[in-house]
């Protein structure tokens, strides 16, 4: 069953405007409530709600906020709308269908962390999102929800948008900060963490679109009401972007802990007639792939997927049926990480290219048997060795693909052709 908390009104076009947001939804009523609370109260409430970051890492939001120094001005709130994890398209929908929900969640969050300035960093390709959010911000200013002394309180908050320009790595919070600073989107060394030294070296909180939108509902309904959905460690609802080989791909909001099987076969209408489930990538292309038996057992929450050696990630579920060649799909995925590595840390810069070239060589029918083992070895030596998680994000799928579908890789090497598709792929050529 879908539980439409955040997405309740997404079907209605007028929800995009302030007028519609007030008429259909509850307008900025929750902001009014929040401004009467103590900022610390809100942080405690968010902690109690069990909300975890919806961008990929799943870090507890309230705890992240409490890392900010007691004092220190200025401090910034940044909304990470640089949605780029392959398979993910939920933030785009959230911005386009319900920009005010995000803005309201952000003002409340900004109040909670006592920030006077926030930016929404939107990936460059999302021109519609940018336009819609910018318009909504103007509406919010006009209505007095942004700017000086919001709704007569002594809280002042300004909000602006910033457009990325095409770089997956800017979805990493410190990469995003670098980009917002007008630089290459290269992640920054940690420590210091952004809560102490972030945007322009000042205390900064970075949260995902969905996380910030969820804050509104936690404040509106209370922590307990929010926890009614989900599991002990994975509270609330979550949007899942389902794509690949399902009949009804799309975004689905379900309680965390929802069975993956039901997501695929009930909500998404299952596979094409005659097709069998082969594998599922449960959390965006960097999440280790699940085999069909694993997928059938999996529930969509942080702990179950972690226990299976994968991760919930951004909630992008890529459903793979038996018409796909796993060597080919790994090649596509490795192409992506090779293309997107920012290039500063050596193991990632060199490792992503090495992985890609090696898979491409197998996928074009020129692989050697030792290349399969090598993929695993390269990957393991890329993990945990770099500033950010992109290196791991490339390594994890590689390790899981070659180990869980080794037979397909071996077949390709032995026969020089795909076990599934029958030929070597001209797509395996390098494109850069």
């Amino acid at each position, binding site marked *: 069953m879908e539980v439409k908390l955040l997405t309740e009104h997404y079907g209605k076009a007028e929800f995009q405007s302030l007028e519609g947001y007030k008429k259909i939804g509850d307008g900025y009523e929750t902001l009014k409530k929040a401004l009467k609370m103590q900022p610390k109260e809100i942080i405690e409430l968010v902690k109690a709600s069990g909300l975890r970051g919806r961008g990929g890492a799943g870090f507890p939001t309230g705890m992240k906020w409490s890392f900010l120094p007691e004092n220190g001005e200025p401090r910034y709130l940044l909304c990470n709308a640089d949605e780029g994890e392959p398979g993910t398209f939920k933030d785009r929908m959230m911005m386009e269908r319900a920009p005010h929900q995000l803005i309201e969640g952000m003002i409340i969050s900004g109040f909670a962390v006592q920030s006077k300035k926030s930016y929404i960093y939107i990936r460059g390709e999302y021109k519609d999102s940018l336009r819609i959010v910018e318009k909504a911000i103007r509406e919010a200013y006009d209505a007095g929800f942004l700017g000086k002394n919001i709704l007569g309180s002594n809280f002042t908050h300004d909000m602006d948008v910033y457009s990325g320009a095409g*770089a997956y790595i800017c979805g990493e919070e410190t990469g995003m900060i670098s980009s917002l600073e007008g630089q*290459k989107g290269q992640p920054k*060394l940690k*420590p210091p963490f952004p809560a102490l030294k972030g945007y322009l070296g000042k205390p900064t909180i970075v949260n995902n679109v969905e996380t910030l939108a969820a804050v509104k509902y936690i404040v509106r309904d209370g922590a307990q009401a929010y926890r009614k959905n989900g599991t002990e460690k994975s509270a609330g609802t979550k949007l899942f972007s389902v794509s690949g080989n399902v009949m009804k791909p799309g975004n689905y909001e379900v309680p965390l802990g929802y069975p993956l099987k039901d997501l695929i076969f009930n909500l998404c209408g299952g596979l094409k007639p005659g097709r069998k489930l082969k594998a599922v990538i449960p959390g965006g292309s960097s999440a280790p792939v699940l085999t069909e038996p694993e997928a059938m057992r999996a529930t969509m929450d942080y702990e179950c997927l972690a226990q299976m050696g994968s991760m919930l990630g951004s909630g992008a579920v890529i459903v793979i049926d038996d018409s796909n060649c796993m060597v080919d799909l790994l090649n596509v995925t490795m192409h992506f990480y*090779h*293309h*997107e*590595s*920012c*290039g*500063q*840390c*050596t*193991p990632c*810069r*060199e*490792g*992503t*290219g*090495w992985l890609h*070239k*090696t898979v491409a*060589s197998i996928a074009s029918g020129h692989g*050697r048997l030792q*290349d399969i083992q*090598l993929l695993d*070895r390269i990957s393991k*030596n890329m993990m*945990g*060795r*770099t*500033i950010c998680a992109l290196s791991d994000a490339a390594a994890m799928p590689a390790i899981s693909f070659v180990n869980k579908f080794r037979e397909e890789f071996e077949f390709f090497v032995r026969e020089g052709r795909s076990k599934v598709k029958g030929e070597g792929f001209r797509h395996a050529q390098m494109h*850069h």
Partner: protein
Amino acid sequence: MPKCTINGKAIEVKPGTTVIQAFKAAGVEIAHYCWHPGLSVAGVCRLCMVQIEGQAKLQIGCNTLVTEGMVVNNTSEPVKEAVKWGLDFHLINHPLDCPICDQAGECGLQDQYVHFGKYDPEMAMPKQKKHKVVDLGPTIVLDTERCILCSRCVRFTDEVSKTNELGIFNRGDRSEIGTVENKPLDNNYSLNTVDICPVGALTSKDFRFRQRVWYLKEAASVCTGCSTGCNVNVYYNEEGAWRVKPVQNEKVNGYWMCDKGRDIYKFVNKEARLQTAKVGSKDQWRLLEGGQAAKDVGDSLRQVAKTEGADKIALVVTGQYTNEEYDSLLDFFNGTLAVKNVYHWVNNPEDMTGFDGILFRGDRNPNTAGLKARLEKRGLKSDWLDLEKKIKAGAYKYVVVAGPENNSVFPDLESKAKMMSAAPHLVWLTAAKSEAVDSATTATYQIPLKTFIEKDGTYTNHVGLEQKVKRGTTIVAGALTLSEAVSLMSGEELDFSLRPKPLTNLKTNFFTAKRGEL
């Protein structure tokens, strides 16, 4: 003061010390490329991996502060494995063209591979193709395939020279260091990027393809290019000196030196030198041995002082000599001969106090401070106009000049030499050969002197810090130190058998004068 244990060795460090600094302090080897003590921490080469007791994940030493009681090692299997692979990641796209690479012999990749390497390369794929022989500016050539993208050079131009010419363009394994159209790497500190480049990506146009570094010897010295007195190594072989690189000294130059300073090796080489004494004038010069010339001059000077008075002698001194040489010079002239007419030749009075905010000073002499202090101590007041006036008036019979060692920083050489050659007798003590003096119209002695690399002594820099220079090599065997010349003038004998022998195989250093061309 936190105490910590580095590979079993207990040491105490200052608060704020990073793990990599603690390794260095403990004298323990640790692999690294991007970290440089004079630059910000980039943390990108990922080689200074360490295992910290109580922490599951390996950490990089450059971005981890030492805390009280920390127990760290870089010898555990996980660290070794990480470093081995880290090195291989650096090498998979590196051309491994060591046989034709200038860095060979002093290359970070070579050196660290020997210590920490994996020794079983597994890369079987085609390497990334990148730009080669990229002309970055007047001083430097870049090979982007050799580059390991440690970003030291970029950080240098952003943080030290603050000239921002360099960037890392593109991303992933297509990344390349480079400059932008119309903004070449052209600043007075550019060659430091070559020094800090751990591989052969950045090479100096002045030095590349000239020598194999393992055939060069190095001599610790002090840069004589200006009054800052940067600590340097001069690299030489039997053909002469080939390059100068900075040596760390926190009190003076940090880790750096300027490009102008690097030119000082040129005036010590044979081609730039006065190799034997000359007597005569413009129309005709007779060659004689330097020691003999000094003796002859000394005889005449003593005679003049005795018969006509010390007022007939003027001594002109540049800020180019060591304190010890000034002492013997002044002891003889001012002490023995009682010459009071001592003049300080200031080569560029209009920018003597200039400073670029980093290292380079307008006073292009190593020892102006030492000279001034000594003149002051003896109560000698130098008045250049007085010299000119008196020469014109014929007041001096002898003008003795301790001239420039490095002619190139004396823009006024020609005019001053001409002015001084109006005296009946000119004695020119100098390491450098010079057309200006060769054109002297009066009776002149030119006596060949040694350069900073050929003698021991001290220079006093602009803040009064005395720094030693030591003899590294001998390039012109027949040249004298100023002190030796003075001893001979005063009638003493020198035991020439104890003096340095000329180098064998002394050949022309063909490239000396061609700095800045490819």
